[in-house]
């Protein structure tokens, strides 16, 4: 039997990996994917606590969280496509200066 805290530690590990990806990587696509990784880590801890407290409410929250993540991915990728079409070259966030014109 696995204690619930190991699931929580795994969730923390995944969240930290995602946060480091957002902070260090400069490719906007990979930053978005790291964001998804962080959301997934949070979902894991929600499900773990739902199991610990025997409350299905945590799983309902994961349901909402997945919906929000899907909406975020759709809008984020649309923004990314627009940026790419405007600049024609890059999705590197260090090279973006459209707002400075």
């Amino acid at each position, binding site marked *: 039997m696995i204690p619930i805290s190991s699931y929580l*530690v795994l969730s923390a590990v995944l969240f930290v*990996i995602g946060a480091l990806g957002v902070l*260090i990587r400069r490719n906007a696509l990979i930053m978005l*994917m790291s964001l998804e990784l962080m959301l997934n880590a949070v979902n894991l801890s929600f499900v773990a606590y739902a199991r610990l407290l025997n409350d299905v409410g945590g799983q309902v929250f994961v349901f909402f969280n997945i919906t929000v993540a899907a*909406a975020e991915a759709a809008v984020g990728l649309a923004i990314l496509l*627009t940026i790419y079409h405007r600049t024609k070259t890059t999705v590197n966030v260090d090279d973006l200066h459209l707002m400075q014109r």
Partner: protein
Amino acid sequence: MEVVLFWVFAILSVGGGVMVVLHRNPMNSAISLVVTMLCLAGLYVLLMGAFIAVIQVLVYAGAVMVLMLFVIMMLTLREDALQREGQPAVWVLAGIVGFLVVLRLARLFPSTPAALPATPDFGSIEAVGSQLFSHYLLPFELTSVLLLIAIVGAVILAKRTTP
């Protein structure tokens, strides 16, 4: 059996996560992310969230990742544009800091005993659905508004405007 499955899924998901962050090519990162999400679905099954696991596979590993892959294909990034990012020293430092953060967080978690025995229908579609349509009805309806806004926003943003 459960212990073995937990460790397999845990190691695979952490490995997938590390590959997402480290890979130079976004396509390889996306495939690693699919691996991570499938492993998380397996962990949800171990935590008796069968319905959430199915949703995870359908929505995340299916829909969201197909969307990502399509965008990666539309961007047609050239190989020379994908330079290596971040100096090795930065990565090592980040790894150390991340390890310390995880250690600190792990001390916060209660040394919980194994979970109580659950009711037989815990995490089933009936259990989640009845909560969703009774106690969480308003958030559920608001979700539809959120999705509508996201659809309209994505269509308007991605529509090619000729400046």
